[in-house]
């Protein structure tokens, strides 16, 4: 175990934080959906997957398209799909036309996940695709900070530049989202519906519009995190499944429906995974177990304290 040095640990922590910030953005979408509609979308990861593919196809079709624009378009596409699905399938729940809405929502979003996954398998096939990094970094050597096209060394700790860009995008989008939710009228309207549906309709907010908007925004956030991460991971149509389970883990950790909780939960999961995989005694299995660490923490939290860190209501 002589490879475990202080620097190695700091490197694990840093990688954990970088990926955790992106997880946070993805989970923010799921928590928004839960807080307003009161359901967990089991198709969250599939929107993440679609977001990545939109960027892939856009960059293939228009080679010199600005990647940031591609990410925005991916957000728009996933937003529209989310809105259409909400209007067709979830809207009747609010009107009381559906018996046992809780079960309905679980099975329905599960069906949506299955559907979207196979649509993409149909279109792209089962083979992984890879998108080149969005930007090359300039070459710099300042001693503590060295940069090359694909890698940055921060105090001699290597970080992939694709990962850094993805995290940058996620941080900006998270900040925008926080601003939107707390400062704009629409954001406050969403918050109002999530806190007290009846009172929100008394002041004149149309709760079903907010449902649609929240679902669209939630799927958009998933789509944009996928769009940001498409350069980091190999993309396959079932890449959304681990993303879904990660989002579940995070919102349960952070407390279902809590936005700060989602961000914190994202960081915790990123760090747990990074350390779990880095410190597992058998390196040949470490990677295979990476996803299992988070799931284990998740199962324990569900059993011991299902309200998470910031839980407010079930």
């Amino acid at each position, binding site marked *: 175990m002589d490879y475990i040095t202080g620097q190695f640990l700091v490197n694990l922590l840093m990688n954990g934080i970088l990926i955790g910030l992106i997880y946070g953005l993805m989970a923010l979408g799921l928590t928004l959906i839960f807080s307003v509609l009161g359901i967990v979308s089991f198709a969250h990861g599939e929107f993440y997957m679609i977001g990545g593919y939109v960027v892939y196809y856009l960059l293939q079709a228009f080679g010199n398209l600005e990647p940031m624009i591609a990410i925005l378009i991916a957000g728009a596409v996933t937003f529209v799909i989310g809105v259409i699905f909400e209007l067709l399938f979830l809207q009747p729940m609010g009107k009381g036309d559906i018996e046992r809405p809780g079960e*309905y929502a679980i099975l*329905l979003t599960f*069906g949506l996940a*299955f*559907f979207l996954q196979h649509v993409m398998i149909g279109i792209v096939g089962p083979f992984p695709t890879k998108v080149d990094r969005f930007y090359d970094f300039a070459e710099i050597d300042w001693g503590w900070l060295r940069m090359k096209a694909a890698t940055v060394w921060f105090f001699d700790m290597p970080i992939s530049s694709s990962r850094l860009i993805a995290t940058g995008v996620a941080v900006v989008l998270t900040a925008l989202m926080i601003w939107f939710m707390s400062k704009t009228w629409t954001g406050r309207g969403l918050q109002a519906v999530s806190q007290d549906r009846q009172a929100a309709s008394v002041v004149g907010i149309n709760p079903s519009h907010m449902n649609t908007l929240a679902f669209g925004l939630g799927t958009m956030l998933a789509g944009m995190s996928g769009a940001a991460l498409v350069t980091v991971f190999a993309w396959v149509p079932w890449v959304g499944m681990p993303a879904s389970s990660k989002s579940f883990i995070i919102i349960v950790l952070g407390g279902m429906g809590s936005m700060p909780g989602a961000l914190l939960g994202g960081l915790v999961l990123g760090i747990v995974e990074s350390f779990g995989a880095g410190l597992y005694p058998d390196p040949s299995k470490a990677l*295979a177990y990476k996803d299992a660490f988070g799931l284990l923490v998740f199962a324990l939290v569900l059993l011991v304290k299902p309200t998470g860190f910031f839980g407010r209501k079930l």
Partner: protein
Amino acid sequence: MKRIPIQGVLLVLLLIFAFAFPRIMQGQPYWLYVALQSFFWAMMAASWALLAGYAGQFSFAHIAFMGIASYTSGILGRDLGWSPISGIILGTLMAGLVGVLVGYLCLRLRRTYLALFTIAFSEIVRLIINAEHEFTGGPMGLYMEPLLETTSYVPTYYIMLVALIVSLAIMYAIANSRLGLFLRSIREDEEAAAAMGVHVVRYKILAFVITSMIAGIAGALDHHIIGFIAPNELMIPRMSLVIAMAVIGGTESLISASLGAIFIHFAMEWLQKIPVPASWMPSLRENTATLQQFGLSLGEGYLQTNAWRMVLFGLMLMLTLRFWRNGLIQPLLEKIGRQGVAEETVAKRKFSQEENEIEGTEA
């Protein structure tokens, strides 16, 4: 007037057909194989329907129990030389044991939380099987000793058919006993059920154990017939398929859920290669590239649909949930069953109406 129970007659006809199927399909072992596979799915879907539809426990770990039993049996056979029969028995018991554990852990969890927990459990099982390759064969899979020393599918067909019928009979007996009533009362209102003296803990765990064992035996039998299992078969989309089958059939009835599974499994086979009229072939052949872009490929006289048939079932699952909550097969069966009854009620109503009219004139 004596009523003939139409549903009963139908059931007997169905059974006769199922037992005669190998004779009908003589010389077509492929369809026999499809049929015996469909019985595996039917056992999965029906036991899930009992757990979810009757007991209201929306567990997504069903496919994991199937895997646990299969792997237990496979590993016992490989490392300790156990025969498939004893392996299957122990594997089934193992699934039941883990079912106790999961059922116990899930006691306090409802709906979404239960779903999330069981997905996590299922994924952990799959990831462990994937990672512990020295023991499980890892992603490359595990070879399992064939159930019978024969290449004919006829005996294995009957084994699966009998397994399906026996497990359906057991589940039917449970669903229509006091236990079934308790399970339903737990589903409708757990607190109220507990207040009325239903031992919620015991019955919830029991529901998990019974259904896990049925999933387990189905999986172990089936994979000994196939001779192979891989962790991919424990993936969530396979679980989705079980759910799609049960929902499209109808989760409130075991027969409907299993018929849904059989129907969908056959439909998936049929839809794999859609026959194309010979006159279309030239123009289709010209557009092979376009077809391929959309994940379709062209064979001699047929179009291969690949993933698109799954898309169809995903869509069907969503539409069934939205518009036909009782599934597609269950209402059909009910309608057939009611036909005899309906005529009677119509006659009765007419009679009582006349009676009322007479009373009306008197008053």
